[in-house]
């Protein structure tokens, strides 16, 4: 491996062995419904509490990813994961029965990208033959964590995003076939002073711009070198800001740039500015994006996970919302284009 500027270049790129996504009802009614591995009609996933429901959803994603790879749990080298709940209990309780080495991550909605970045380093270095990046979010558990109880009669402003009930898991392996992870750029915390909890897209867009810009500089590339550049999850507002920020530099992002928060739902689903939550970008990656790469529709994709690193405490204490964006460059082999 090699480092250029801020970017890690993997010389023996880890490959995506398998992936799986499990989502809730509303997500299953969205435009990507055909691409998910499992859609639950019941957002309780048969559990008594929303927290348990989230854990159940995540363990389902892990099980499905492993079974698609025909990989027994005992042969999985390491799991990297996290979620939005306090002390990441969603992930801990999902993985409690696995007995697999576990590294907990907190990157808010950027967790999938962060997990892929760290997992890639572990696999390429040879410490692990396989590693899994996993994350989840659940509308009902996140809502009370960050905002109001579910039955409280509040109104969501137009800039607010909808926390996705979704989980995604990616298993990486050394060698073999599959989509490669060729580069990764860890993000830096960027805080442009946005204080509104109802406008996370604005809080995170600057970090997305800065990480993507650094990656372009490090690799001497631009948006036209990629079939898809996708942030997750800036929503309508943040998506527009990233376009505007690059416009100032004379770079037109529009032809290839999209956002997971805009891909997961369609306009009629009443999600205001779009989706959010760790599970949003994870589920979009583990369904639409990786499928399209396997089918040769996309060959080079920049997956840029964006997280708002706030807590209700920091917000109550008047702190602005820091954002972060981790970037992972995915490439499919040429021959798949045939």
């Amino acid at each position, binding site marked *: 491996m090699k480092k250029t500027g801020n970017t890690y270049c993997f010389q023996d790129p880890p490959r995506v062995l398998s992936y799986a996504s499990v989502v809730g009802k*509303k997500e299953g009614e969205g435009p990507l419904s055909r691409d998910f591995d499992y859609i639950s009609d019941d*957002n309780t996933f048969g559990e008594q509490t929303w927290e348990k429901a989230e854990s159940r959803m995540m363990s389902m994603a892990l099980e499905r990813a492993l079974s698609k790879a025909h990989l027994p749990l005992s042969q999985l080298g390491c799991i990297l994961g996290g979620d939005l709940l306090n002390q990441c209990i969603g992930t801990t309780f999902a993985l409690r029965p696995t007995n697999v080495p576990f590294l907990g991550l907190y990157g808010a909605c950027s967790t999938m990208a962060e997990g892929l970045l760290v997992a890639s380093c572990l696999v390429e270095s040879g410490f692990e033959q396989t590693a899994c990046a996993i994350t989840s979010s659940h*509308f*009902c558990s996140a*809502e009370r964590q960050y905002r109001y109880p*579910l*039955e409280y009669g509040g109104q969501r402003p137009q800039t607010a995003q909808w926390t996705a009930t979704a989980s995604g898991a990616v298993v990486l392996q050394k060698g073999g076939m599959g989509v490669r992870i060729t580069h990764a750029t860890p993000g830096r915390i960027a805080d442009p002073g946005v204080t509104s909890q109802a406008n996370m897209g604005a809080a995170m867009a600057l970090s997305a711009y800065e990480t993507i810009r650094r990656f372009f500089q490090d690799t001497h590339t631009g948006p036209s070198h990629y079939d898809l550049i996708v942030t997750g999850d800036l929503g309508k507002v943040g998506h527009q800001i990233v376009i505007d920020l690059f416009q100032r530099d004379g770079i037109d992002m529009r032809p290839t740039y999209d956002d997971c928060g805009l891909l997961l739902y369609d306009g009629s689903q009443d999600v205001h500015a779009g989706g959010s939550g760790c599970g949003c970008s994870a589920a979009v990656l583990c369904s639409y994006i990786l499928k399209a790469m396997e089918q040769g529709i996309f060959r080079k994709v920049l997956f840029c996970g964006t997280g708002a690193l706030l807590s209700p405490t920091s917000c109550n204490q008047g702190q602005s919302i820091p954002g972060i964006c981790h970037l992972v460059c995915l490439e499919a082999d040429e021959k798949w284009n045939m």
Partner: protein
Amino acid sequence: MEYVRAFLTAGVICAISQVLIDRTKLTPGRILVTFVVLGVILTGIGLYEPVVKFGGAGATVPLLGFGYTMAEGVKEAIAQRGFLGAFTGGLTATAGGIAAAVVFSLIGALIFKSRDRS
């Protein structure tokens, strides 16, 4: 006519609150606090009594009316019990609503279960 006045009074109060929620940093929680305190103050300086006379339930049912009821209760309690009334009046006058909210909510929590809203 009484109903029209109630409708208009409550409508105006709610529309003003909505504008405050949409256009200022006041969250619903802060709006509620502001309105109750404002209700006490407006009643204290004699401005809310005419609104109640005009709007009836349209003025007493919104949270401004909660403040109004507290302030009226304080006045009455002081008239009856003197100094102590300053402390007992507010809670006594609103005790019904508060106790009802607590007790019904507790019973409701025992019977019902939180549901998915998505």
